[in-house]
């Protein structure tokens, strides 16, 4: 027992059954009781049934002010049941026997006969009804006060998460009656996170009372309730209006920064989708000079692979998604190699014809999926660890699936880059890209490199499909919606340049997000498209032009 507890007890002594005693008597009684509690039960204080009865007795009044004081007294008492009582009171489920002295808590008030328990012992007390039990009524002021009291009570109990939750609920709920209790909680609290929330709640109360010095605590606080109260104060003619306005401006500018961060995140995640979709295209275009119009459909195949693996493993979306990563890669790569071996190989050196033929393949694949599966969209479930959002603070939250796609994109990019940089295949690919004839005369089997490159590009498209299945529905038209964008990314970034593709995809994603609030989603896209078209006029080789004679 800390000294502050004794202070808390003081209001209780003025009320209820003890109202008849003098103030001094009360203090003595309380002091004696406190000592006794401290001796009897050092951990969880218990009050005698008589004391509990007295506390509840005080609630039995028609005067709401007296009821408020009684509730305050309960909150400040050491009764182990107090939280339960206050919650029941808040729900209108705490009542008194009409012909008797017992108090009950109604556990279920839906029917005509209510199951009830004894309010003090929590023992089953059979059933009661409107006739036998008189539930205590509360008004709005009391309801607000009760919520504040319960919040501050839960500050005492439970683990850190519960206390933090309770402390957050306190913001804006502190009033003249509870301010001392809350301040007392602050001294008891050990967790700094909970302390910060309590301090905010107290500071907000003090600012509302006109205390300008408390404003410094609120500086940069992102809580909506703080912002609302401050803007009310700043708009009023209170003496601290100007200072509150200043603090508010600080908060607003901090919010604006976080909102920019949010936009950047959305842009980067949209960009990472573009990069994933475009990077396979960039490889095939760069190495073989081949425009693969069926690239979008390879993405779609990757997404459908994810869906199918999920159908095979019901109830395990996480495992299915992990299996879909190699699965999507292999399926799309197999289709890619098939396309290369059966069609593209015969159209060497005729890029426009290749474009048309691969477009034909894309139509066939689309229709194939429509016939085999269905023209309807399929929903791929997200595993738990990709659902929800990572709430960094009030103004900034990152959706986990988009964050996952962003990270996945970076991992795929890094893997591809390492492949190109450190493996024999990468070396040969780069050689063929730079000078096919020379590479062949040095003994590089260009046809084999073509096949593997195409398979690699297609496989990466499959990976893009796996990622896309987590943020959008899977349907036969999935690929079409990305193909124009991916081509723009490739052309914008510079053909056959991995870094160019990364920078181009990310910047297109961010530019699109930044434009969207001003002009709307569609017009933003149109502006980006026109912008890239104009950019290509200026720099036909893209952002990162290959050096030397290859251009």
């Amino acid at each position, binding site marked *: 027992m800390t000294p502050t507890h004794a202070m808390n007890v003081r209001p209780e002594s003025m009320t209820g059954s003890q109202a008849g005693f003098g103030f001094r008597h009360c203090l003595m009684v309380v002091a004696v009781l406190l000592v006794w509690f401290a001796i009897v039960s050092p951990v969880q204080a218990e009050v005698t049934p008589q004391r509990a009865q007295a506390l509840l007795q005080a609630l039995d009044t028609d005067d709401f002010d007296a009821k408020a004081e009684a509730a305050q007294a309960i909150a400040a008492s050491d009764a182990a049941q107090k939280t339960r009582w206050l919650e029941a009171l808040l729900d209108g489920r705490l009542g008194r026997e009409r012909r008797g002295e017992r108090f009950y808590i109604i556990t279920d008030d839906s029917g005509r006969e209510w199951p009830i328990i004894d309010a003090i012992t929590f023992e089953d007390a059979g059933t009661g009804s409107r006739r036998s039990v008189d539930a205590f009524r509360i008004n709005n002021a009391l309801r607000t006060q009760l919520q504040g009291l319960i919040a501050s009570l839960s500050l005492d109990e439970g683990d850190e998460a519960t206390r933090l939750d309770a402390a957050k609920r306190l913001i804006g709920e502190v009033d003249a009656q509870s301010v001392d209790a809350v301040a007392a909680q602050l001294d008891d609290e050990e967790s700094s996170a909970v302390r910060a929330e309590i301090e905010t709640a107290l500071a907000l109360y003090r600012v509302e009372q006109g205390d300008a010095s408390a404003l410094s605590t609120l500086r940069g606080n992102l809580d909506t309730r703080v912002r609302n109260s401050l803007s009310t104060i700043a708009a009023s003619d209170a003496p601290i209006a100007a200072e509150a306005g200043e603090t508010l401006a600080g908060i607003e500018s901090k919010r604006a920064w976080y909102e920019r961060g949010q936009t950047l995140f959305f842009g980067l995640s949209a960009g990472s989708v573009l990069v994933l979709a475009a990077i396979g295209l960039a490889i095939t275009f760069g190495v073989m000079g081949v425009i693969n119009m069926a690239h979008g459909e390879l993405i779609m195949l990757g997404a459908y692979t994810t869906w199918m693996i999920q159908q095979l493993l019901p109830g395990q979306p996480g495992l299915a998604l992990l299996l879909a990563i190699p699965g999507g890669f292999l399926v799309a790569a197999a289709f890619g190699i098939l396309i290369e071996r059966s069609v593209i190989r015969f159209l060497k050196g005729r890029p426009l014809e290749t*474009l048309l033929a691969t477009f034909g393949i894309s139509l066939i694949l689309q229709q194939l999926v429509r016939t085999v599966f269905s023209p309807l969209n399929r929903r791929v479930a997200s595993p738990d660890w990709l659902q929800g959002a990572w709430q960094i603070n009030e103004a900034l939250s990152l959706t986990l699936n988009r964050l996952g796609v962003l990270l996945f994109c970076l991992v795929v990019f890094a893997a591809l880059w390492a492949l190109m940089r450190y493996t024999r295949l990468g070396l040969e690919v780069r050689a063929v890209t730079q000078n096919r004839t020379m590479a062949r005369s040095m003994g590089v089997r260009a046809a084999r490199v073509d096949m593997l490159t195409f398979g690699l590009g297609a496989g990466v498209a499959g990976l893009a499909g796996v990622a896309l299945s987590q943020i959008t529905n899977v349907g036969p038209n999935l690929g079409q919606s990305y193909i124009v964008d991916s*081509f723009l990314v490739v052309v914008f970034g510079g053909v056959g340049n991995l870094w160019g593709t990364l920078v181009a995809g990310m910047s297109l994603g961010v530019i699109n997000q930044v434009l969207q609030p001003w002009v709307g989603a569609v*017009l933003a896209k149109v502006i980006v498209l026109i912008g890239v078209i*104009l950019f290509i006029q200026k720099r036909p080789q893209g952002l990162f032009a290959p050096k030397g004679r290859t251009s």
Partner: protein
Amino acid sequence: MSLATVFKRNSLLDERSTWITSVVLIVGMLAVVVLHALPPDHAWHLNDSVVSLLGKYLTYMLLALAVDLIWGYLGILSLGHGAFFALGGYAMGLYLTAQQAPLAPWQAVMAHFPVAALAVVLAPGLLALVFGWLAFRSRVTGVYFSIITQALTFALMLAFNRNEMGMGGSTGLTRFDELLGFSLSSEGMTVALFVASGVAVLLAFWGCKAITRSRLGRVCMATRDAEARVRFIGYRVEHVKLAVFVLSAMIAGIAGALYVPQVGIINPSTFAPLFSIEVVVWVALGGRATLYGALLGALVVNYLKTVLTGVMPDAWLFLLGGLFVVVTMFLPQGVAGLMAHLRRRREVTA
């Protein structure tokens, strides 16, 4: 020297394919008009909807001509010609809409037919001029050009889908009543539009033929085959390309304007990249750089589409996709090239 020889030597018609095509077109048109005029209970009678359908094919053939002119002779593969077609269509659509309800103030001039007719060629022409000037000046060629034309039509599709454009949003412009004071649903109008489309195809065919046989046409083909050399000889290649590109866009615009009253609707799906690329496969199937091949390809593919989408809709995309692959792999010169090949073999063996 007989009259026929003079005629053949000094005119466009000295190529066998050209006069055969002209004769087939004229005879076919006359046949349709005559069959339509037969009494309705006659076995060979063609009803209005068939004539409208044939009229639609004619506008597609006109569009295919426009694509062949720049792809076949100039080697520029435009994957955005549907955009020019749609722009011409929207110009006509605005005029037709204005016959019922007043347009927004900035579109009000389109209520006058001469203005609308001018817009049909000027709107696509101007877009092609600006776009082509930017592209050809910085020597954007080959697949790059194809991709940015595709992006162009895609961007226009998104833009025309917006209601704020004042072009009917995603529904487009529809429910037309009358053209030049005549009801669109009357029998005479159906035939008149069909004949107008036929005449337009014929004129465009002769016009394109004339261009390809002129010095301009020869420079075009030289550019297609060896652009750098033509440049070194001293031709301003970008001017040549720009002129032909703009002309081709205008032809596409006219095709669109003739298409809209016969079909009764124009909406943003005409801007869809798929439509533009379909046009390319018509030309590829018929045979590039022959003009009559484009006409043939457009007719055959669209007839197949009408039949198949009615009978077994699922098969259509398989067939279309298959066409792309088969034509590019086995028939690089299209049906026209195949026929020429067979004829040469017959001449050799004979």
